[in-house]
């Protein structure tokens, strides 16, 4: 299956795109990755003289891979869904390890349910050594423009 198509249909661009590739996707979940390049702008401010990836950005990365990529797939299979609108409705995350500039992370998301346009997932992020970086429960409401 062409997972690049899913990434192409994400409603984000740099500097707020936090998905490089989707490795695997089906009705039950998704797995994808992203490399936090050293040049990313927020490292200049978080923290001063001590760059560490902000927790909110880790959450965003989990949401873009775990919720939005999966949502695009669930709405229209491998063909994906252009013009997806999504709103994050809840996030409950716990963080275990810092992610330093230049690190590549993997996000694994498992669908808890997708009903009445609400997608709720169990998400986990791992670093390149397969250590757990963060985990949590994310939920969002999905809509296509054509649904209106």
């Amino acid at each position, binding site marked *: 299956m062409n997972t690049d198509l899913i990434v192409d249909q994400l409603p984000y661009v740099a500097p707020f795109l936090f998905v490089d590739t989707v490795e695997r996707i089906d009705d039950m979940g998704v797995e994808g990755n992203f490399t936090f390049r050293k040049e990313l702008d927020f490292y200049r401010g978080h923290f001063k003289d001590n760059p560490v990836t902000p927790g909110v950005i880790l959450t965003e990365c989990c949401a873009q891979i775990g919720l939005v990529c999966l949502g695009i797939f669930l709405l229209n299979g491998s063909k994906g869904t252009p013009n997806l609108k999504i709103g994050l*409705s*809840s996030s409950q995350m716990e963080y275990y390890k810092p992610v330093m500039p230049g690190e590549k992370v993997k996000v694994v998301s498992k669908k808890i349910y997708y*009903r009445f346009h609400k997608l709720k997932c169990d998400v986990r992020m791992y670093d390149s050594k397969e250590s757990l970086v963060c985990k949590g429960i994310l*939920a969002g409401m999905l809509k296509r423009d054509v649904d209106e």
Partner: protein
Amino acid sequence: MGEETKFHILRDIIKVYLPEDLSVDAIVPTSNFLDELNINSAHLVDIVLDVEDAFDIQLENEDMDRMQTVNDALDIIAKKVQAKLT
């Protein structure tokens, strides 16, 4: 199960999702979920899923679409529970 009992079960489900500035007394049959109880659409889905478990019924997209007030929900619950018995 009487109508009163159904309302009490539903009220107990809804109160979990109320914003903190609203008390459980705000939940009356005529309450509008989004406008009066300030429940967002994501929590409305949670309420529907809890209702399904509590009454052992299944709601469809069209039920969700017409569920504007507590009364609407009670009406849908009554019909689904009745359909299950017949």
